[in-house]
């Protein structure tokens, strides 16, 4: 059950007259605690993001960092690890003085996440920073651990009364995956919301921190020309693709338990679907934006067991070629169990049963070892009602197609029909292209820089609300369950190809998958 949906994130405050015109708004004084402080995510993403915020002068006036992890080590040793991680993974070369200023008083608390003593020590360190500052500091607990520890850590934070703090805001940031099934997601929500209130909880979907995803909102709601067409009367179908040319690499342990559906569709791709299909929010506040996204998820019918074969396809790649090299198939990848039935490719046909979208198919597909890396949304418009032009010698008048490319070359292209120069009226499709990279001077910040700042500021717009997570799972859970009970072997596709032929059966007559 959704808990606390629609509540305001924070109490309104009197305005600060000095913030007008500033591009960087102040972030309240905060101590950030990273659980799983020595893990891969912390090393590769979180610490470099913190450094880059520090470099830009974008951290709070008062900022402290505490790492919590199982391994025993001294504060100094952890600081050295932080420095090494930042030097290895920062998007810019670190400035030694900034690095020293950032890491100078970083603390480390060793211990297992279920040990109450860890939280007692953590509480002491948090208090010490406040005494030093002479004021209460906001507290943000970042759960960058294996998902199994989320309820353990949240429970311990509650037990040790670190979930609230007099005079300051306490927030918990939870990494994905938020559950591996609807039941788990609900259970996790229940446990988290027994300790924290929904406005304190920031569920990360790092896709939402990408400039490209935020640009979709600007594209739809800052440009009047698309809105009149953005409905079932003019749009024939929507295709969302997140293709990767790489295999699973060294992630077999995680990936074989998750699969493509859980890894990308349940969270990122359903977020993209929501951005395409949502109604314009009344305002761009966290609650209004998320209310509109939840309405979309509620409008997607949950498939019955009998419907799944007709609306979902899964597959595994076999040996093939990628980047001019021979590559192995999924089942031959290091660490993949023999006979695994985990999908490395998933495609779905969904509908959004509301006034705007009824009858328009939304095709979603994702997979590893496909022909190339691309994430895009293709919106195909209905064909013109009458063809006045001869089709002889022509590629023909094809429906207009609007393609929003999220990566690698972020941009928008519109397929139009144009006359081929000559004496006859022969039409062929041409593309009108806009590339974001050609039109802006600034470099996009890493998604985690934006998300960490937003969490510390208490802005939940780019985070997933409890009912949103559950809404996503309600769509994916029946498919996960059906696939778990279906025997293998799975359909296959050659590595480096366009995906399995079986995916075609999801398409309406006349529809085609776009070439990857």
């Amino acid at each position, binding site marked *: 059950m959704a808990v606390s949906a629609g509540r305001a994130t924070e109490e309104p405050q009197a305005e600060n*007259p000095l913030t007008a015109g500033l591009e960087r708004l102040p972030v309240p004084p905060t101590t950030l605690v990273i659980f799983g402080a020595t893990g891969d995510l912390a090393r590769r993403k979180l610490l470099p993001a913190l450094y880059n915020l520090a470099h830009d002068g974008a951290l709070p006036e008062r900022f402290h960092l505490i790492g919590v992890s199982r391994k025993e080590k001294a504060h100094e040793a952890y600081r050295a690890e932080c420095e090494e991680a930042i030097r290895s993974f920062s998007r810019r070369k670190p400035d030694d003085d900034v690095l020293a200023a950032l890491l100078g008083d970083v603390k480390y608390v060793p211990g297992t996440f279920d040990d109450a003593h860890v939280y007692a020590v953590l509480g002491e360190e948090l208090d010490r920073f406040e005494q030093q500052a002479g004021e209460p500091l906001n507290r943000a607990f970042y759960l960058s651990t294996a998902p199994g520890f989320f309820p353990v850590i949240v429970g311990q934070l509650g037990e040790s009364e670190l979930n609230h703090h007099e005079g300051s805001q306490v927030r918990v940031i939870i990494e994905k995956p938020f559950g591996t099934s609807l039941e788990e997601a609900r259970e996790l929500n229940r446990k988290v919301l027994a300790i924290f209130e929904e406005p304190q909880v920031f569920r990360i979907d790092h896709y939402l921190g990408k400039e490209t995803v935020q640009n979709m909102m600007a594209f739809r709601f800052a440009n009047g020309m698309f809105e009149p067409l953005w409905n079932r009367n003019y749009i024939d179908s929507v295709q969302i693709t997140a293709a990767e040319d790489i295999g699973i690499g060294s992630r077999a342990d995680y990936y074989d338990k998750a699969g493509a559906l859980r890894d990308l569709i349940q969270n990122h791709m359903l977020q993209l679907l929501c951005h395409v299909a949502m109604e314009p929010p009344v305002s761009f506040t966290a609650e209004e934006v998320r209310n509109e996204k939840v309405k979309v998820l509620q409008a997607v019918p949950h498939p019955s067991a009998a419907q799944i074969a007709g609306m979902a396809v899964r597959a595994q790649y076999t040996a093939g070629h990628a980047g001019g090299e021979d590559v192995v198939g999924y089942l031959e990848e290091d660490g993949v169990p023999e006979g695994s039935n985990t999908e490395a490719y998933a495609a779905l046909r969904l509908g959004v049963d509301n006034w705007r979208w009824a009858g328009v198919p939304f095709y979603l597909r994702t997979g590893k070892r496909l022909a190339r890396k691309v994430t895009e949304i293709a919106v195909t418009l209905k064909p013109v009602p009458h063809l006045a032009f001869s089709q002889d010698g022509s590629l023909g008048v094809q429906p207009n197609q609007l393609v929003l490319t999220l990566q690698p070359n972020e941009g928008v292209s519109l397929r139009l029909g144009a006359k081929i120069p000559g004496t006859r009226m022969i039409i062929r499709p041409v593309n009108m292209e806009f590339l974001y990279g*050609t039109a802006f001077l600034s470099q996009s910040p890493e998604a985690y820089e934006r998300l960490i700042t937003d969490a510390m500021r208490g802005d939940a717009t780019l985070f997933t609300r409890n009912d949103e997570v559950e809404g996503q799972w309600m769509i994916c859970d029946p498919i996960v369950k059906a696939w778990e009970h279906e025997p293998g072997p799975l359909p296959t596709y050659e590595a480096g190809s366009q995906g399995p032929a079986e995916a075609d059966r999801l398409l309406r007559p006349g529809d085609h998958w776009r070439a990857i």
Partner: protein
Amino acid sequence: MSVSEAVWSAQGTTPDAIEAALRGLLIERHAENDSYVPARVLNMIAFVDREWTGEIANRLRGVGRYHASRLLVLAYEPRRVRLDARVMIAAENEPAPGELALLRETVVVELGDRHLDDLLTIADPLVVTDLPTLLWSPHGHHEIVEHLLPLAQSVLLDSVDEPDAGEALARAGTLAERVYVVDLAWLRSTPWRERVAATFDPPPLRTELGTLSQVDVRHHPESTVAAMLLIGWLASRLDWQPGPLIAHGAALTGTARASRQEVNLRLESAPELMVRGLEDVTLETAKGRRVQLRRGRGGLRARVREPRGHEHEWTIPGASRGETGVLGEGIRQALLRDPTYLPALAAARAMLS
């Protein structure tokens, strides 16, 4: 640093020929590899003394990704009679498979006194239509700025370049009536404004903004204008009525009338500061809170004395942008609009009246 460059040059040429060369080079580059695409963000016209073109080129090279997508350098040499030009189209990196590489265009036109009357007709064909245009004349030449103003949506200037603060502020004010002004002196104060805003952002402290009673700013000897703009910003945001500043040795002092009390103002030159900008900003409230921010290694050093006398000192991390960073920020700001500059400028001018 560009890794791939196409060059064209000609002596005794015309704007039409230069424009045709630009088009030709772009087509060539695209044919060579269709991953090369021209950036289309901003035109920048720099009117510079020819003898200093190397120095200006070095400064612009340092702005990195903030380089204008088309840079038109008008290199002026009074006695030159022939129009010479050079066109360079450069990519910062080779395109990776499946990715794009942006092309940036630089056009250098060498001209003399005899071309000044027709300057608009030389520059106009060489900027990309429908892109915003930023005009910069780092070596003075105010009359040339006037001449080229119809082409520009914004003007880049550095008020600390003017020897007289009053004249600098008056000139910025006059230009701002007709075009958007990006003032590097204002941008040098941005980190300080951000930090002062953040210091007083916690709700209990916001109310203390109304009780500010003293503001001291120490600045590079040539950066009086930057200090005045910072105080002008506080005055305009907090509804102070600033009075005139009076010179006392190396300092300027004065007062501003806030709703509840007088605010004492002091601007003092800091000869030890080696780079343009501010060295130290100190604010005191009538309640006895004192906040000092000063330049330090790895960021601003903050020192706060609470009303009860407790003192805290720490570093707020942040990298120095350096002069090239400030210039790059100036170019980027041509695409934005800061509504607080003009009120700050007006308040700063009031302190000189």
